């Protein structure tokens, strides 16, 4: 009877204070969308950072005097090195095709012959991110007569090395701030919702309801508001991610653990917010 009454009261709260509850759910969904957007942004940045770092590509341009067999034997030799994950031969024809794709075919058409040399696309092993070590390895490669030159995106690696921890620090601080703002916003809206139900709480106190009994329907309502708010936020985020991928932006799909986390965050904030708000009101 009691549990049934409490759940019924919690659900009825939605209907009884429609405007306040509606605003509360809306605020919750917007606040959670904000938090979710931030987390998704960080996830995407982290993912692309990882993919860049997991596969640092070197391009070793081969001497034009090498025969095909010599190229293949060099490829096998380099692929076997401890620092290397894989090495692939890029023939002049493949290089030309790649060039045409990037810059258009016109430039090559002007020339009578293909000026691009054969090269090796070398992918370094995971964790090989230290700039000094990479440069040392490049020196080893260029010391060979068969290799004319080695190039890679040095600036990008340098920047990533330098700003990775600063990035984590900034993202962490901003993340905590965004979450705190969202939590405050949610707490205050729940407080307003509860304030609009003063009479019910006053009557409950007056007729001798225990604090636990007074709090329960509001907590149930808070949990429901959190659940609803997080589901709306998830839908908004899904639409945004879908929109971004339709615009061909390289976004990762929303992971399942993120969805679960956002719903749990919503429920948690609704629960804590309502518990604290009624608690404060009862202490007055």
């Amino acid at each position, binding site marked *: 009877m009691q549990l049934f009454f409490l759940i019924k009261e919690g659900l009825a709260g939605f209907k*009884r204070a429609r405007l306040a509850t509606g605003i509360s759910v809306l605020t919750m969904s917007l606040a959670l969308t904000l938090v979710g957007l931030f987390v998704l942004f960080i996830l995407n940045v982290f993912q692309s950072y990882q993919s860049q770092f997991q596969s640092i590509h070197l391009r070793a341009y081969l001497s034009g005097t090498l025969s095909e067999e010599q190229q293949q034997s060099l490829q096998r030799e380099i692929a076997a090195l401890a620092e290397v994950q894989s090495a692939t031969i890029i023939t002049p024809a493949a290089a030309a095709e790649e060039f045409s794709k990037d810059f258009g075919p016109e430039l090559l058409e002007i020339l009578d012959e293909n000026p691009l040399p054969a090269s090796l696309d070398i992918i370094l092993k995971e964790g090989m991110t230290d700039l000094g070590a990479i440069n040392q390895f490049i020196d080893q490669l260029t010391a060979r007569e068969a290799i004319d030159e080695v190039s890679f995106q040095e600036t990008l690696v340098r920047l990533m090395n330098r700003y990775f921890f600063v990035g984590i620090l900034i993202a962490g601080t901003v993340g905590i701030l965004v979450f705190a703002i969202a939590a405050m916003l949610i707490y205050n809206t729940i407080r307003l919702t509860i304030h609009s139900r003063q009479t019910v709480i006053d*009557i409950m*106190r*007056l*007729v*001798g309801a225990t*604090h636990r009994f*007074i709090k329960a329907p509001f907590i149930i309502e808070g949990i429901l508001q959190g659940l609803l708010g997080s589901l709306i936020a998830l839908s908004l985020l899904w639409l945004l991610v879908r929109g971004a991928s339709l615009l061909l932006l390289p976004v990762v799909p929303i992971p399942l653990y993120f969805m679960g986390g956002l719903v749990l965050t919503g429920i948690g904030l609704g629960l804590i917010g309502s518990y604290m708000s009624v608690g404060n009101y009862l202490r007055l």
Partner: protein
Amino acid sequence: MIEFYNVSVNLGRRQVLNSISLEIKKGDFYYLIGKTGAGKTTLLRLIYMDLMPDSGNLVVDRFNSARIRRHQIPLLRRKVGVIFQDFKLLPDRTVFENVAFALQVIGARSYDIKNKVPAALTRVGLYHKRYRMPHHLSGGEQQRVAIARTLVSEPFILLADEPTGNLDPDAAGDIMGLLENINRSGTAVMMATHNYDIIRQKPHRTIILDRGKVRIVGPGEVSLG
């Protein structure tokens, strides 16, 4: 049943009650009068322990203000009925639901609710209007619903804070009749009021609050200036 021992209360810097001692027994009927701000509401709040004395103590039923625990206060309030000038009804619930609410929130069984609510509504003469919403009732009827809400818990005392303040003289007379009727069945009543016509027409013992002190006078002995 209710005993005040040298109770003092300060609200901010002002001393509202100054070492008052008082005893209310089962079946008593008291008016509580005094100027605005004299401490009538404060005295009533002390009884349902919505406010605690700054010094001295009071005993209500088996609860002593000096020793009562926070979780015991709801148990005390189940035995003390309180009604107000503004009725404090839930506007989005029917008459029946308003009265039943008092039992539901203390975890009463549905069997008790089904029995006690109609009985209380019959006692205040509103059983036939049990499905009405409060805004469809007159002021006097709304106050009757508030009274019925206290009656379902079978309180030993009914505290009424200006219960006729919002009512016309006829409705006020009806409410007074109802309170006297409840009192005759053994429930003590303490009624704070400014309505001296009622005190004249329905004389009872009166607690006069003046400059933090109490004085009790017998029925018809109040000098109404």
